[in-house]
């Protein structure tokens, strides 16, 4: 039997109708809520083409505790510990934001000495928060050792916290109007010791990471975000400054005694993960400088009171107030409505992590799965704060 022209046509026709042997479809990957590097209980639903992310959706709320609602049923001093625990990594900063908001609505003037102590503690807390970010970010990118190095330094600060407030992580540092206690004996020496010891450790991290080829390959050009987009999304803190926008509430709207402090706001250039890394590293050094300056001022105010005249029952006048501070992760704000009773009528938190997380989708699309982990790390989110 020979092959006729008809057969050839048939084969040609069949060839045009060839379909792929297997169906191809995108893979939906559930990252979290139980995943080692979503920094808590963040659930990210990834749509993957191979390993490239083509779409991404965040699912939050696994850690919701209703802090804002609880606040409506608590007196002003009672709310403080709840608010401390929203961002458990930076509990001191959170406490500061709450007491300052109440002081603002009450019109309280905090004594200078208390302001300096507050600056020292919040800046130390900024360092602990950034160290924890550094450690977890490095774990996300596979450099496990830095994690434990960072925790070693963090330990020194936690010792100071433990001596002062009795707690290491879940601190409750401040009281409305200032402090209940002055610093403990040896506080200044301990802080000084940390400040002397810290720069060489920072140097150690920089030696390991800054020029490391793999580190550069994993961070340069990853998670780019332009300054315009960053402002549009509402990024604050290091992610915003990494894109080169100079906005630091400590400079823009100084609270406490930050006007007296001399420090620079580090800015990134390209807005990628590497820039945000550099910004945070520099911020740690600047925080140390601020602590040293505040420590000098603290010596001048030896013996002065640390708490303003505060009524026994705190009943702020009727009014609304929004107050924000520069938390380690960005602009941490509280909107407070006071109806003249001893409980707030409404408290609303502006958590920096929550707003910063908005950028995740835009930053991740087109990158690989491994980069998603890096970008979640560079945004430095805390789920306790996002879910509140």
């Amino acid at each position, binding site marked *: 039997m020979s092959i006729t022209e008809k057969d050839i046509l048939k084969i040609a026709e069949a060839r045009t109708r060839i379909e792929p042997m297997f169906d191809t479809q995108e*893979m939906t*990957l*559930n990252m979290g809520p139980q*995943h*080692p*590097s979503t920094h808590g209980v963040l659930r990210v639903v990834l749509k993957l083409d191979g*390993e490239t992310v083509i779409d991404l959706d965040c699912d939050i709320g696994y850690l919701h505790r209703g802090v804002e609602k609880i606040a409506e049923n608590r007196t002003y001093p009672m709310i403080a510990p709840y608010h401390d625990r929203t961002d458990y990594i930076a509990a001191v900063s959170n406490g500061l934001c709450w007491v300052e908001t109440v002081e603002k609505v009450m019109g309280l003037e905090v004594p200078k000495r208390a302001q300096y102590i507050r600056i020292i503690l919040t800046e130390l807390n900024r360092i602990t928060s950034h160290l924890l970010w550094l450690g977890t970010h*490095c*774990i*996300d*990118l*596979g*450099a*496990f*050792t830095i994690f*434990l*190095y960072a925790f*070693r330094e963090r330990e020194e600060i936690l010792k100071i916290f433990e001596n002062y407030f009795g707690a290491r992580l879940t601190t409750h540092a401040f009281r409305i109007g200032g402090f209940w206690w002055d610093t403990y004996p040896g506080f200044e020496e301990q802080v000084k010791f940390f400040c002397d010891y810290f720069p060489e450790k920072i140097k150690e991290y920089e030696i*390991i*990471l800054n020029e*490391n*080829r*793999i*580190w*550069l*390959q*994993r961070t*340069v*050009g990853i998670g*780019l975000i*332009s300054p315009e987009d960053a402002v549009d999304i509402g990024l604050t803190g290091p992610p915003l400054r990494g894109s080169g926008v100079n906005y630091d509430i400590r400079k823009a709207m100084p609270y406490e005694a930050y006007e007296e402090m001399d420090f620079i706001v580090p800015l990134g*250039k*390209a807005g*990628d993960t*590497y820039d945000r890394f550099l910004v945070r590293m520099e911020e740690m050094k600047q925080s140390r400088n601020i602590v040293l300056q505040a420590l000098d001022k603290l010596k001048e105010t030896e013996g002065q009171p640390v708490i303003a005249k505060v009524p026994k029952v705190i009943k702020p006048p009727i009014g609304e107030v929004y107050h924000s501070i520069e938390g380690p992760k960005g602009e941490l704000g509280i909107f407070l409505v006071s109806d003249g009773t001893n409980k707030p009528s409404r408290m609303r938190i502006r958590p920096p992590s929550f707003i910063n997380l908005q950028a995740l989708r835009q930053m991740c699309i087109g990158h*690989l*799965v*491994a*980069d998603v*982990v890096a970008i979640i790390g560079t945004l430095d989110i805390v789920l306790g704060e996002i879910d509140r």
Partner: protein
Amino acid sequence: MTNLLMQIAGPAGWLRSVLPQSISDSVVYDVIWPLIQIAVALFIVMTLVAYLTLAERKISAWIQSRMGPMRVGPWGLLQPAADGLKLLIKEDIIPLLADKAVFTIAPIVSMVAAITVLVIIPYGAGWAPITDVNIALLFILAFSSVGTLGIILGGWASNSKYPLLGALRSSAQMISYEVAMGLALIGPLMWSKTLSMVGIVNAQNGDHIWYVFYQPLGFLIYFVCALAETNRAPFDLPEAESELTGGFHTEYSGFRFSLYFIAEYAAMFTVSAIAVTVFLGGWDFGGLIGHFLANTHQNVYTVISIIVFFGKVLLLLWAFMWFRWTFPRYRYDQLMDVGWKWLIPASLANIVLTGVWFVIGISIPDGKPFLKNYGTYIAAPGFPAKAYVIGSAFLVTITLTAILLSSINKHSRDFNLRTQRQLQLQKRAERLAEAGNM
């Protein structure tokens, strides 16, 4: 054959004299003695592997300013036993939707592949090697690929997404690094002219040199590929903990998981053993003492050679661990880049250039073809020949390969990150300027 073996003193000969004459010589020399050797080698290597897990934890602890395991036994020395016991009594979970047969077999495949190779490794001089196959190196390369197959099977059979991604990564990694690894081994083979492991060591003994000096580039390439081949950081993508939770072994538990674990460490031992054999002179410890012992006290020499061999292997394993706890992890595409754009061209260049030096060395026209006797064990090459080979390998080969690689990767994103960054900034400035004009 038997007569030849009879002449070798040592445990085999002793065994012959102890066992009754009713057992024939061939049974003693070809069955009983190899079985004893296998049992002993397996015992030693498996103990070593178990203690490698402890070593890893201890070394990571020292690097990270911790103490590591200290509770189980003195200084944590019983930790491997405790870990093994724990894994043994854990529940063995097979996911409902998994392909049961493949899921069960996969870790065994990995494990068997890792263990089989142990037969070929030359643990020492004289009676120490279990067997000497003339294609030993090919055999080892083939079996290390089978080990990766176990990973792919396991990831596929789990019927889960993270293991699947891990398995896919693993297969891509296997293909790209196996090639460079095999090519890197060709360089030293040109000098040794044999694939037999014992033969390679003997060739290095005869030449009084370790091939790492003749093949520095080959050694580097081999070492990097060995890291990737055994899924060690910075190439531990198939099990990247922070991305894929557990990678291919996410769904495995209990003893099956420990099989993968043991297989990984056994594979580490194997690749280190190959590196030691091919590049670091195997059991050779050189010098006058070595030659004196080899000629007079054969058995003492063998025992020392075994210790030397394991010492060298442990040194390399230490480097494996050191790397793991120092470097961040590569990304999947960067891993492919390193494999295809750097290591494979480099290993090809290494082969070509080694061949060129060889030919030139043979045909140098001053009447003294000093490389003529290479690989024939007639005489060790003299100093000028060694200087020529080492010099060409270190200076010219590495320089030329570096030039070649940089020209290949000139436009690659990862080659010059600083330029890349500058471009990025420039683009942004242009875009901003445009926005300003509008």
